[in-house]
C-alpha cells in the first residue's frame, strides 16, 4: 500500500476544484472579503510605541555625544541596542529589520558644538512603518535639547538658548513621506490571506464529516496526506487571486510604491499561503462541526492580527508577545512583503524570513496528519 499516490491526489484536487466552482457564494466571499477589508483597514491605526531598537554610529567620544545617547535611552523612545562600526554595518541592520533607527554622530562633534559650528546630528528612521517611528522621530529634537542643557552650563549655557546648538537632521528611509498606508496595505495582504484561507480550509474536512461524505471517502483507499494536500492545492489558486487583487489595489487605489520585484512576492507567497491552508486543514481535523471550525480559525487569526506587527509595531511589543508573534507565519510574511515592496529587498535579504514559515508549515502538516481520523470513531 503506497502512502502517496499521485492519481488519487489528483482525483481529490479535481473534485475540490469542481466543488469550489459550484459554491459561488464562498468563492465570491474569498474575492470580496479582501476588497472590503482593504477599504476598511486601509486607514491608519494609531499607537505610540516606545523602546525601539536603535543603533548608534558614533565617531565622537565627547561628554556631549554620550549625554545625547543617555538622553535618548532615558526618554524610553529609543533602546540603544547596537554600536555598529561602519555605515554599511548600520545599513545592514536596518535592512534586516533588526533596528528601527540609526543615530550618526560625526567626528569632532563635541568640539564643533562648543565652537558653535552646529555639527550635524543625523537620525535615520526605518519609516517603512511610520506608525512605529513617528512618535520617536518627533520627540528627538526635544530629547537632544534637554540632554545638552545639563552639560552646557556656565559660559556655554548660551549655546543652548534660543535655537539648538546642533543641526538635527531626520531622514525617513524607505517611506520618506511617512505615509501609513504604504505600510498597512502590504501588511493587509498577509492579514487577509491568513483570515480567509484558514477559515475556508478549516471547513474542508468538517464539511465532509457533517454531510456524511467522510464515510464514503474513508471506505476508499485514499490516504490522509492525499486528502489534506488535495484540499489545499485548489485554494492556493484562490490565494493567488487575492494577492493579485491586493497588489493591484495597492498600486491603483493607494499608490503604494513597488520597490521590489513583484515576481518575488508571488514566488515567496506560496509558502505562506500553503502554511495558512494547512492550519485550516489541521483545525478541521480537530473540531467536530463547522461552528467550532470558524471559532478556532478566529482563535488563530486574532493573535496573528495583534502580535505579528500588523496592528502594533513588533519591536514595541513586550517580550512575551514578541515570542508568540515569532511563531506565527504572518509575522515573518509581513517582514518579507514589506521588505520587498517598500525597501526593494531582493532574494538574499528576503529568504531568511521564509524559513520560519516553512518550519511552521511542516509542523502543522505533521500535526494534521497525526490528528486525521482514519476511522469514524
Amino acid at each position: 500500500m503506497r502512502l502517496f499516490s499521485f492519481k488519487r491526489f489528483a482525483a481529490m484536487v479535481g473534485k475540490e476544484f469542481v466543488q469550489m466552482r459550484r459554491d459561488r457564494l464562498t468563492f465570491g466571499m474569498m474575492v470580496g472579503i479582501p476588497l472590503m477589508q482593504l477599504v476598511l483597514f486601509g486607514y491608519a491605526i494609531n499607537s505610540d510605541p516606545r523602546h525601539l531598537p536603535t543603533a548608534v554610529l558614533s565617531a565622537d567620544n565627547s561628554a556631549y555625544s554620550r549625554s545625547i545617547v543617555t538622553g535618548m535611552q532615558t526618554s524610553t523612545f529609543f533602546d540603544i541596542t547596537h554600536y555598529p562600526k561602519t555605515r554599511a554595518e548600520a545599513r545592514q541592520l536596518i535592512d534586516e529589520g533588526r533596528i528601527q533607527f540609526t543615530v550618526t554622530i560625526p567626528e569632532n562633534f563635541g568640539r564643533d558644538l562648543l565652537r558653535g559650528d552646529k555639527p550635524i546630528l543625523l537620525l535615520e528612521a526605518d519609516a517603512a512603518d511610520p506608525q512605529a517611528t513617528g512618535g520617536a522621530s518627533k520627540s528627538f529634537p526635544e530629547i537632544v535639547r534637554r540632554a545638552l542643557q545639563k552639560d552646557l552650563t556656565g559660559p556655554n549655557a548660551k549655546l543652548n538658548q534660543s535655537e539648538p546648538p546642533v543641526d538635527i537632521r531626520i531622514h525617513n528611509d524607505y517611506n520618506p513621506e511617512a505615509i501609513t498606508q504604504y505600510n498597512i496595505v502590504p501588511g493587509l495582504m498577509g492579514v487577509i490571506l491568513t483570515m480567509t484561507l484558514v477559515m475556508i480550509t478549516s471547513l474542508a474536512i468538517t464539511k465532509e464529516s457533517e454531510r456524511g461524505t467522510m464515510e464514503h471517502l474513508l471506505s476508499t483507499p485514499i490516504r490522509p496526506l492525499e486528502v489534506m494536500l488535495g484540499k489545499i492545492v485548489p485554494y492556493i489558486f484562490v490565494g493567488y487571486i487575492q494577492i493579485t487583487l491586493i497588489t493591484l489595489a495597492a498600486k491603483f487605489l493607494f499608490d503604494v510604491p513597488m520597490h521590489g520585484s513583484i515576481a518575488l512576492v508571488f514566488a515567496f507567497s506560496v509558502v505562506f499561503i500553503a502554511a495558512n491552508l494547512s492550519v485550516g486543514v489541521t483545525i478541521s481535523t480537530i473540531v467536530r462541526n463547522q461552528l467550532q471550525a470558524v471559532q478556532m480559525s478566529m482563535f488563530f487569526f486574532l493573535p496573528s492580527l495583534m502580535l505579528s506587527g500588523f496592528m502594533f509595531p513588533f519591536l514595541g511589543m513586550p517580550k512575551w508577545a514578541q515570542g508568540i508573534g515569532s511563531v506565527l507565519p504572518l509575522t515573518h510574511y509581513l517582514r518579507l512583503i514589506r521588505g520587498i515592496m517598500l525597501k526593494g529587498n531582493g532574494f538574499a535579504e528576503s529568504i531568511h524570513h521564509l524559513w520560519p514559515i516553512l518550519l511552521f508549515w511542516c509542523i502543522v502538516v505533521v500535526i494534521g496528519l497525526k490528528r486525521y481520523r482514519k476511522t469514524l470513531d
Partner: protein
Amino acid sequence: MSSETVINVQGLTKSFDGKTVVNGLNMEIKKGEIYGFLGPNGSGKTTSIRMLCGLLKPDAGSGSCLGYDVINESELIKPHVGYMTQKFSLYEDLTIRENLDFTARVFGLENPTKIVTDCIERMALGPFEKQLAGNLSGGWKQRLSLGACTLHSPKLLLLDEPTAGVDPGARRDFWDQVHTLASQGITALISTHYMDEAERCHRLAYIAYGNLLASGTVEEMIHDSELVTWNVAINNGENALHTLSEQLKPLPAIDQVVAFGNTLHVSGRDPVLLEKAIAPFQRPPFEWTLIETSLEEVFIDLMQQSKDGLK
C-alpha cells in the same frame, strides 16, 4: 474450504460511551453468498458493517475479511470492498458522472472514463448523468450509490439498508442486480428490514440490541424457532376478528397474534398448550387452519424474546 470463506469474525465487540452496541458478534460468510443482516433499528447492524470494512475499530474480537486481518489490515481490505452506506454519502454538489469519476480515480482504476461510462449504462443512469446528485430522488440516489460501490469490481459488497424508501419496482431491479453479481462470485452482506428481501438471501443473521440471536438459511431459522402457527379466517365482518385477537393476546401459551388482512396469524411455541388455549375459540364464524410459520413471525418472536431478556 477456508479459502472459500470471505468473512470470518469472532467476538466483534464495540461500545460507544460505555454502551455496548455490538456484543461478541460471530459471523461466517462464504464466497458468492448473499447474506441478509436483519434486526430492529439501533441493534448494531451499521456498526457491525463499519467494523468489517475498517471504518470503526472493534474494542474486542478478531477475524478475517477477504483473507486479511480485520483489525490490522483494513487498508488492504478497502480496495476489494464496495461499501454502500445507509445514509447517502456521495457528494450532493457533484453530478452523477463526477461522483462516479471521482470514486473510480480514488480507487486508482485504469481507464476510469470508460469504466464510468459502462457503469452509467449498466445502471441506466444515462438521462441523469449531468444532474447534481443532491437533486436526485431516493431511488436514483440508491442506484448511483450501488453503481459507485461496484465500480472497482469489489469481491465483497457491504450494503447497508440499500433499499430503504425505494419503490417496489426499483427494489426488484436492485435485487436482480445483486443476484447477477453474486452469480459472478461476488459476496454480499446486506442489511434490510424487508421480509421479502430476507427471503431472497442465501443465509440470514438476526441481531437485536447488539446480540446475534439466530442465523442460518430461511428454512433453518423457521425450523429453529419452533413456532407453530394457526391461521384464523372469518366469513362475516372484521370486528369479530379484532375482538378475538384482543382475547387471544393475553393467553400465556400464545406468543403472538398478528392481523394479516382478513385473517389472523396466531403463533405459539408449544403445540399442545397452544391447541388447548385456542380450543374455546375454534367455533364459527372462525375457521382455524394450521399453516407454515413465516419468517416475519420468527423475527417478531426473536425481537420479543430479546426484549424480554433485557427486562
